[in-house]
Each structure stands twice: as structure tokens, then as C-alpha cells.
């Protein structure tokens, strides 16, 4: 059963990428929807397998690490695989109705979409440093292609900026891989982790880890390396923005986090951990502030991503030199934050796209009086906002709670202020949009109701992020399943 699931997971998106390259947009849509269903089942099946039997290593081609490439199939990885399935499913379905079939280049959305999915799955399961590099590049090129699909000058400029940043980040990562391979002669993360645990010190590899984290931070748009993100996410078509914000930036963060958790304790340093944390804190505060200042709806959401990404990097200080119980708390908090942000941000971008479609403008003031039409999308937007603000009962809240607990228990109380202040600032920009919709002004009869499907999808995502809080315990339980080493 397991080989089938693995093959399905890796093979389906790649195969569908090839298949959907040939037909025109509409047939591509049908094919994609079939594929989405298949892929969803596979992801769910794998999740259940791991939930029952625990995690395992899967050697590709029968060659075990360090000679070959092994996939690490553990609770965290399958959780992210399922998350990807959910979000990609929603965005893909939404795109089918959102993108206009008449525009010729839109047909290329499908193959790029499927390649992106394949790359994401590869990254979640990757346990080989170089394989992760290839996966990252695959994701970056897909994302750039998707951003450029919007076709106008602004989109091209954003795409080029994005591409250059992504390439630089990947190259830095690869340089780190080169140093680490030179030091240990192995590419398998688990193998290196075992080697690092020996008593020696490895300053050269430490530099390697630093460069890798730097490169990945650039790809994740950690403040102050965030400049490329808002234009790219703001200008892309809404389903694309949703995919990018929800999943793509998480991929590079995921790699950084896995590296740090495996090697950080030995190769990292307190200063590095705190510095990354401070950058994250600045991202939270300045990102929220910038989001508040934007006049265009999707730019608000894009800057909000910069802010929310900041929270993720609190993982570094909260897992360095602290007791295992705190590491556990921080890990769980960050994982929940990733999941809830992915769901909420995807919902938000899709809803924002619908709203723009409805009022025919992307400016925040154009939303005046929209709430009287009771658009579902506004409601989805607000519900997703609850999660971003970290208010209960959303997943964002439980994540914040765990992080608060972790910072308190680690004695690094200064992160408490960041977490609480960040919540308030995000309330400022979310409510700014909400407030605009309550303004009563005259002459606002033009309102287009998008098709039901388009409205339902963000609503479902938003509800999921909202209810994540209630099921946090079981979700976390799967993530922390025992892992059979060398299985």
C-alpha cells in the first residue's frame, strides 16, 4: 500500500503537469479537477497510514542514504502534504472559474500549478540537502511563471524581481550545501545530524548553516529581505497569490526550520538565533504597519504575509539552548502558525480576488458600503482575519498561545511583547478593510455577485482556519508521532 501512495503522491502531480500542457484551458480544467480529487485521496491515505503506523524513511530507487535519496515521511511532513492538498485543491478549483478561458496564456496555469504541487510535496518529504535545492528551484521557477501569467508590465517587473531574489536565495543555500558536504561528505540530513552530535566542533559547517539560513530567509521574505514579496503576491492573479502566500513561502521556511532543528543546537549560536528572532519581530511590527498603510486591497494582504512570516522565525530563538519541553512547545506553535496562516491567507487572497471582481477596483476605499450586499467573500475575509489577528478560536490563536507559553517558559519574555503587539497591529489592518465596508455612501448600486463556487471556496478555507483551534490537539498529536529511525 505505502509504495502506491508514495508513487501516487510524487507521480500524480508530475504526470498531470504533462497531461494538462496539451489541451486548452477548459479541458485542462476538467483534467485538473479529476487530478485534484485523486491527489487529495492519496494525501489523505498517506496521512492515515502515518497516523496509524508512525513515520518511516522511503529510499528512492532502492538506494539508501547516503548513497541515494531518502524521503522522510513523518507526521510533520504528511501534515504539510495534507495541508498542501487542501490549499492547492481550493486554489486550483477557484482558478478554474476565476481565470478567463479566453486569454490564451491562461492555459499554462495548469501545468505550472501541477509542477508547483509536485515541488511542494518533494520539499515536505525531502531529507537530502541537494534534493531540497532542486525542489526549491522547481518551486521558484513555477511561482515566477505563475506571477508572470498576469502578463502586464507590473507583473513582469514583479516576476523578475521575484526570480532574482529566489535565485540568489537558492544559490546561497547551495553554497551552504557545498560547505556542509565538504565537511561531512554526506547530503542526508539525518546522517549529518548524527555526525554533528559527536563532540567535535565544526566552525566551517556553522558558516554553511548560516549561509543556508540566510538564503532561505531571503526566499521566505524575512524582513528586511522582504522587498520582492509584496509586488509579486500583490500583482499576481488571486489564486496564484493564494498559492504563493499560503504554500510557497512556507517551503523555504520549512527547510530552514528542519535544518535548524537538526543542526542548530550544535552548529548555530545564541547570537544567530536571537538575530533571526529580532528580524522576525521587526517583520511582525513593520510588516503590519506597512500593511496598514497600503491603499490597494491585495497589497494589504501581501504585506500581511510579511508580518505573519515574521512570527515563524521566532522558532529560532525559542528552540536554541532551551529545555526540550520548550522546544516542543515552540515547534508545535510554529507548525500551527504555518497551517493556520496557510489556510487563512489563501482564504483572504481568494476572497480579496472576489471582492475586486465584485466592486471592479482594487482600492480599499472602493469597498465602501459593500457590507450591505452581504457578500460572502467579505465574511470569508473577516473570518480569515480573525486567524491572522490571533483571536480565538482560530488556529492563529492556539499558535499564539503556544508561542506565548514557549517564550514565557524559555525566559525570553521579550517575545511576549512582539506576539501581543503583532496581534493588535494586525487587527489594525484587518479592521481597516472591514471598516471601509461599513461606510455608508451614496451611489453604490453597481455590485457584481461572483458565482457561488468562487464565494464558497474561500469561505471553506476561512472556516477551516477558524475551527483549527478546536482540533489543534489531534492535529498536533499526529505531528509528534514517534518516528522509526532508519525504517
Amino acid at each position, binding site marked *: 500500500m505505502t509504495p502506491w501512495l508514495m508513487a501516487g503522491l510524487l507521480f500524480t502531480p508530475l504526470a498531470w503537469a504533462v497531461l494538462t500542457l496539451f489541451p486548452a484551458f477548459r479541458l485542462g480544467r476538467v483534467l485538473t479537477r479529476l487530478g485534484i480529487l485523486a491527489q487529495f485521496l492519496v494525501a489523505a491515505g498517506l496521512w492515515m497510514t502515518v497516523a496509524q503506523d508512525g513515520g518511516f524513511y522511503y529510499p528512492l530507487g532502492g538506494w539508501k542514504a547516503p548513497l541515494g535519496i531518502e524521503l522522510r515521511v513523518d507526521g510533520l511532513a504528511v501534515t504539510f502534504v495534507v495541508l498542501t492538498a487542501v490549499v492547492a485543491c481550493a486554489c486550483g478549483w477557484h482558478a478554474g472559474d476565476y481565470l478567463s478561458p479566453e486569454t490564451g496564456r491562461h492555459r499554462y496555469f495548469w501545468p505550472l500549478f501541477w509542477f508547483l504541487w509536485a515541488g511542494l510535496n518533494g520539499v515536505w518529504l525531502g531529507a537530502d540537502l541537494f534534493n531540497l535545492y532542486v525542489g526549491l528551484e522547481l518551486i521558484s521557477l513555477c511561482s515566477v511563471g505563475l506571477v508572470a501569467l498576469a502578463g502586464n508590465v507590473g507583473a513582469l517587473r514583479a516576476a523578475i524581481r521575484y526570480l532574482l531574489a529566489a535565485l540568489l536565495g537558492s544559490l546561497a543555500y547551495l553554497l551552504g550545501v557545498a560547505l556542509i558536504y565538504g565537511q561531512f561528505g554526506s547530503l542526508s540530513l539525518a546522517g549529518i545530524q548524527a555526525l554533528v552530535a559527536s563532540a567535535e566542533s565544526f566552525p566551517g559547517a556553522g558558516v554553511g548553516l548560516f549561509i543556508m539560513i540566510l538564503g532561505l530567509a531571503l526566499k521566505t521574505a524575512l524582513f528586511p529581505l522582504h522587498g520582492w514579496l509584496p509586488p509579486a503576491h500583490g500583482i499576481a492573479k488571486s489564486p496564484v497569490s493564494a498559492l504563493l502566500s499560503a504554500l510557497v513561502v512556507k517551503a523555504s521556511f520549512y527547510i530552514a526550520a528542519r535544518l535548524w532543528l537538526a543542526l542548530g543546537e550544535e552548529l548555530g549560536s545564541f547570537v544567530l538565533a536571537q538575530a533571526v528572532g529580532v528580524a522576525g519581530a521587526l517583520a511582525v511590527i513593520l510588516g503590519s504597519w506597512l500593511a496598514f498603510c497600503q491603499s490597494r486591497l491585495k497589497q494589504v494582504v501581501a504585506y500581511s504575509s510579511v508580518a505573519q512570516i515574521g512570527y515563524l522565525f521566532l522558532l529560532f530563538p525559542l528552540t536554541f539552548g532551551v529545555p526540550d519541553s520548550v522546544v516542543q512547545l515552540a515547534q508545535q506553535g510554529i507548525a500551527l502558525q504555518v497551517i493556520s496562516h496557510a489556510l487563512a491567507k489563501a482564504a483572504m487572497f481568494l476572497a480579496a480576488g472576489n471582492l475586486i471582481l465584485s466592486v471592479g477596483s482594487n482600492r480599499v476605499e472602493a469597498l465602501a458600503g459593500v457590507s450591505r450586499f*452581504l457578500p460572502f467573500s467579505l465574511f470569508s475575509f473577516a473570518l480569515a482575519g*480573525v486567524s491572522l489577528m490571533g483571536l*480565538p478560536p482560530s488556529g492563529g490563536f492556539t499558535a499564539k*498561545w*503556544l508561542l506565548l507559553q514557549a517564550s514565557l517558559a524559555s525566559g525570553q519574555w521579550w517575545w511576549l511583547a512582539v506576539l501581543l503587539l503583532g*496581534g493588535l497591529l494586525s487587527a489594525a489592518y484587518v479592521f481597516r478593510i472591514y471598516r471601509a465596508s*461599513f461606510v455608508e455612501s451614496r451611489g453604490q448600486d453597481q455590485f457584481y455577485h461572483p458565482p457561488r463556487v468562487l464565494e464558497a471556496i474561500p469561505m471553506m478555507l476561512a472556516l477551516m482556519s477558524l475551527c483549527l483551534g478546536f482540533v489543534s*490537539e489531534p492535529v498536533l498529536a499526529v505531528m509528534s508521532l514517534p518516528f522509526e529511525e532508519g525504517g
Partner: protein
Amino acid sequence: MASGALLPVFALMTSLLASLIIFTLPEDRGRVRTLVNIGAALIKLALVAVMIRGVAIGQEYLLAFDMLPGVEFVLRADALAMLFAGLSALLWLLTTIYAIGYLEASPNRSRFFGFFSLCVASTMGIALAGNLFTFFIFYEMLTLSTYPLVVHRGTPKALRAGRNYLIYTLTGGAVLLLGIVCLHGLVGDLRFQEGGHFAGAGPELRGALPWVFFLLVSGLGVKAALVPLHGWLPQAMVAPAPVSALLHAVAVVKAGAFGIVRVVFEVFGLESAQSMGLLSVLVVVASVTILYGSAMALYQVDLKRRLAFSTISQVSYIVLGLCLFGPVGAAGGLVHLVNQGIMKITLFFCAGNYAETLGAHRIDELDGAGKRMPGTSVAFTIAAFGMIGAPPLAGFITKWMLGIGALAEGMDWVVGVLILSSVLNAAYFLPILHRLWFRERTTPWPKEYRWGRLETSVWLFWPPLMTAVMTMAIGVFAAMPFSPLAWVILIVSREVAL
């Protein structure tokens, strides 16, 4: 015990579902909306009644599961919860009826009633929350669901008020969250428990606990409008009258006060809070708030603003009662939770009636309104006398209990505060009554509507009268079983008798 676990959930769900149904209803389906609204309110009232009976005979309704590792979500119906739940279920019904009449011809009604029900669901959750974590969930939900009600009119003034409301309450929420997390870090997950948890707390805890207490109370104090955290409340008056009524009588302000009650009684415990010297600070804050609110009310010309400052003052009676160290004072404070709710909602209903029927918003526009609207004015008069503390009305019970409690614990100066406050109450209510009944109308009403036989719309006419009757009944029948006072004495006996 399965049904026992589910009853609190049902009580929550009735208004939650009602809100979801209403959100999906188109604007013009007024009849269905009314049906759903009133039906849900009646069902909820019935459910709460069942639970009250059950709690009285010692049954326990409990639902608990882990939301996070080591953090529980708990819904639990105990005596204190039922006090608040009963109040909100009853007043929800009346306010809904009132609001249907009040908003009869205005736009955005689906939106309004949807959030209105959501707000009541949150209040129910606050009542039934079994630990601070759960309490916080509903506390923040309340903030979110009241915002759309405050800015409902969409005017710049309303939007500004809404912004300030959010700044205050969300900051308060953040402080509260910090307090809860600190407490969790110190002692782990704590369910609310009669008598509190820290009776035998060691010295290492005693160092940190006052800080936690400070965080919790200042977080809750924002909603309870303790001076100096009260700034949002008078501004929030721009909301439609039913919203103000709800905000002041049951939902927001009371949620804060109720939270303080929970923290003092069931987290810290009255005795340990007292022994750590936490309450003597709080009693000063409460007294200052009482006097400040009353004094400020004197200067307001807008009727609703005067009522708002009156609320600031009156809600602090509840806090004051807790801090009197003794069971009698505590009972006085708790019973005021109900009494103030019923009296204040009457006053707001009446204010809304004057505004809707006569177009009168300012106090000097009310000359001779007693003749034009005798029913409303009688209700207003009863409630105002209740507020002042005239026997045998509801307010008298509160002040009597508080006074006795203070004397019993040797805090004579509190009696002075009570008397001074009553004088001030009289000073700002009696001129209104004088205008209502003893002034002649010389000019036409600012904006008059006629409704046929009754002085105002049926929907608007009966709710204030009913609450006025309740104001009297609570006072007169204070000794009956299931009266608020009897119930409060039951609570206090469970809390303090240990």
C-alpha cells in the same frame, strides 16, 4: 450524563445557529427573520430554565476536551454561570423584540440581527466558560461580534467610535491573554472552582500572583469600564438603542464585570485574594469609578450619554461588592449584576423610544414627554428610582446588601461612598423626571411619528414596561425562591462557606 454535557452546547448553539441562518437570509425576508429570532430566544430561555432547575438541585453540566496539549476547553453550568446565562437569555428575548420594532424600516437588518445573535452566543459562552482559557475565547468573540453593531450606522462618528472601541477592547484582550498565559505558566490549566485555587499557595507563588491578578483585572477592567479604562463606553453610544441596551445591560460591560467575579471568586478565591492584599486596591478603584461616573453623568445633556456614565458608575457596584471581603457584600455585588442589567435596559429602551417616537435625544427636549408617552415614561421613572435606590425597587436591594456588608467588615467609608453616589444618582435622574412629568410642552417635538392607538410601536412599547415590572418584582419578591437574591445567596454560600 450525555445530555448533561450537551445542554450547555445546545444553549450556545441556539443563538449561533440563529445567527448563521439570519446571515444567509435575504434582506426582505423580514417575517422569517423575526420568527427565527424570537424562536431561538424562546428555545434558549427554555434551555437555560432547565439548567437552572438542574443546578439548583445540585446537578452538574460539563463538557470538556483538550484543545491543545494541557489546555482544556470547558463548558460548565454552575450556579454563577446560570445567574449570568439566565439574565442574558431573558434580556435577549426582550431586546430582540425591541430591536425588531426599532429597526423596522432601516437597511442592513440581516447583518444587524446576525451579529446580534452572535453577540448573545458569545455572552452565553462567557457565562458557561469553565476555565479562563475558554472564557477568553468567548470574551474575544464578543469583541468581534459587537464591533459591527457599534458601527452599524456607518457614519463617520460611528466608525470613529468603533475604532476606539476596538483599540480599548483588543488591547484589554491582549493584557488579559498575557495574564492568562502567565497564570498558566505558573500553575498550569485551572478550571474555575468554588473557593478558588490558591488557599494554600506557597510564598514562591505569592510573589508572582499579584502581578497576574493585576494583568487579569486590568484586562477585564476595560470592558467593565473601570476608571481610567472607560473611555470607549460613552462614545459607543452612537450605536442604535437596542445595541446600547445590550452592551450595557448584559453583553460587554457585564462580561468584564462577570470576568472579574470569576477571577476573584473562582481562580484566586475570596480569602486568598484578600490575604494577598489584592482587593484593597480594587475597592479604591471601584469607589473612584462609582463617584466619577456619577459626577460625569451630571454634566451630560445627551440622554444616552448620561445613561452611559451612569453605567460606568453602576457596574462598579458589582466590583465593589466583591471587595467587601464578606458574604453579604459579595451577595450585594452579584445581585447587582442582574438588577443593574434589568434597570439599565429599561432606561435604554425608554431612551430609544423617545428618540424613535419623538426625535428627542437631548434631555432638554423631553419637556412634557410624560403626557405624550405615559407608558414609556412610567417605565423610565420606575427604573430611575430603582437606580437611585428607592425601596422597594431592585436597586435598593443592592445598596442595602452592600451597606450591610461594608458595615459588617468595618469598612464604614464605603457606606459614605454609597450615600454620596445615591445623592448623585438622584441629582442626575430627578431633573429628567421633572422634565418628563412637570414641564409643559411649548414647542413641537423635533421629529414625531404616529403609530395609531398606542403611544409608540407595539414592539417598542411592551419591552420597557415588562422590564420595569421586573424591576419592581425583584425588589418586592426578593425573598422568594429563584429570585435573583435567593440565587445569589445560594452562589455565595457555595463560594464562601468553605
